[in-house]
């Protein structure tokens, strides 16, 4: 058949933005792309999603900030970042050189801080979308409340949308009773898309020293260990809303990425497993294309929600 000899169409479109393929980087696991540029050709990725950036530089948490756990890791970086000015001057300028979409992940201690960053980015042509991290478990002053209360989530979404110059993705935390309700709240607030999952809150205690392994005591769990929870939530969220869903949580292979697409994601992000295999993002792109060819599926977009009863 002629169609099967053609290369599948890997592109996907989310909120009017067309990505050359559905494979993105998960915020905070890929810097601004710079550090992984030596391992993968950034031009081959659907998007680079940057580390969360705030209005001013943040120190983050004391160390130890990371811990290994069975099939994954805990992190309590505490959103260290150089602040929006340096980010624009340096990181955004670096990404200027690449033919990939740029999604900037935004964090803040207060709603005003979020809005400040979003406003500053409004005129930046190099920014294709914004991802609002309302779900970081390591920020104590309020951010966790944004992510777990539907009314607050809806309100901050509305406020962000009012000042945003780019389409807005609300990034949801999995540490909630009802993810569908949170997805609907983001949609009601006008979000153009949602992404999930952020990390599950976890803890590790060293039984020899009888101390918390992380200085912050709790940290965010990520990696293959969380994939079944993430797939379930992506499925529930995508059933609950009409806006597109970007799925992530433990992706370690092209097959994992396909699983998220089948569950309802329009695109996917590779996170902690970049640390295990720094070339993973590119391998996922290649593997997903090979999957489409093997199954005679003409386009990646057709995978979205294609799981059968």
């Amino acid at each position, binding site marked *: 058949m002629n169609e099967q000899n053609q290369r599948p169409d890997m592109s996907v479109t989310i909120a009017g933005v067309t990505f050359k393929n559905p494979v993105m980087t998960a915020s*905070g*696991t*890929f*810097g601004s792309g*710079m*550090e*992984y540029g*030596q*391992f993968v050709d950034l031009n081959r990725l659907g998007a680079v999603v940057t*580390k969360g950036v705030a209005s001013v*530089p*943040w*120190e*983050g948490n004391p*160390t*130890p*900030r*990371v*811990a*290994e756990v*069975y*099939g*994954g*890791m805990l*992190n309590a*970086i505490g959103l*260290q970042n*150089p*602040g929006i000015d*340096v980010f624009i001057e340096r990181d955004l300028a670096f990404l200027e050189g690449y033919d990939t979409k740029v999604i900037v992940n935004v964090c803040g201690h207060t709603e005003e801080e979020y809005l400040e960053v979003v406003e500053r980015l409004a005129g930046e042509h190099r920014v294709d979308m914004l991802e609002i991290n309302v779900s970081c478990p390591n920020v104590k002053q309020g951010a966790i409340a944004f992510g777990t209360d539907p009314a607050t989530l809806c309100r901050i979404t509305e406020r962000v949308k009012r000042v945003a110059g780019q389409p807005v993705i609300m990034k949801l935390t999995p540490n909630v009773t009802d993810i569908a309700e949170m997805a609907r709240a983001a949609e009601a607030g006008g979000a153009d898309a949602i992404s999930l999952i952020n990390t599950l809150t976890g803890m590790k205690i060293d039984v020899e020293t009888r101390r918390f392994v992380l200085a912050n005591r709790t940290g965010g769990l990520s*990696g*293959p260990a969380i994939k079944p929870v993430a797939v379930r939530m992506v499925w529930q969220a995508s059933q609950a809303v009409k806006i597109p869903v970007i799925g992530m949580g433990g992706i370690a292979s092209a097959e994992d990425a396909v699983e998220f697409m089948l569950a309802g994601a329009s695109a996917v992000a590779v996170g*902690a*497993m*970049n*640390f*295990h*295999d*720094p*070339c993973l993002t590119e391998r996922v792109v290649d593997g997903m294309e090979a999957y489409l060819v093997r199954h005679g599926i003409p386009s990646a977009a057709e995978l979205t929600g294609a799981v059968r009863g």
Partner: protein
Amino acid sequence: MDKSTATVISCKEIAESIWDLRLRMAETFSGEIRPGQFVGLYPGSAARLLMRPISICGYSGGGETPVQLRLVFRAGGAGTRELAGAQAGDAMDVLGPLGNGYDLDRLAPGRVLLLGGGIGIPPLLGLTRALTERGAQVTAALGYRNGDLFLKEDFEAAGARVLIATEDGSAGVRGNVLDAVRAAQAEADVLCACGPLPMLRAIKAYAAGRPCWLSLEERMACGVGACLGCVVRTRDIDAHSRVHNARVCTEGPVFAAEDVEI
């Protein structure tokens, strides 16, 4: 720098729980290798996904001939115990070379005092070789728990004057490396140290204004500067992070003692 699959040449226990691993690196393991740099070794178990940072103790080859690395590590936790089980011929995934390493031009020639404590000793061996080759006069003060003096002869062969301290007094001076240095009245223009944090703090104080380089350890996830997991508090605002934090895996692991708050 790359993640590549090396071949195990040998892996032998040279002291209690201290293993000497020799690797033949893949061709894609490239880039200049400098003393003080490290690699990330990936245990094979699917339960353990993060690399173990291990300093380069020695290396050879490069250019036409394949690079060989010597890594000496303590099998302490589950991951390093797994690595210690490597057999000749096994494949092992390695990320690196990582980190800045020592700036040899700022050390040699001259009188360099190296101070290594415990598993902080191995990284100083490659440094010793590089320094004596460049005409430096190297004194290596090595601190051990007991008389199991791993690598001591290698330091001597590399041209260092070796001072020994042991915690139990079974060899050299009873006490720590600084006790050995004081006992020998060793003099130096510059100091380089690697070992546990209390030792590094003491050495920073002892250096008293002389140039002093410390090799730091911190928990790591990515090893390449992306995750911001491995930071150390810095005196000044760091050029990359724009806060008082520098990444040990990228700006380090070797820092000027006065630059870091340890």
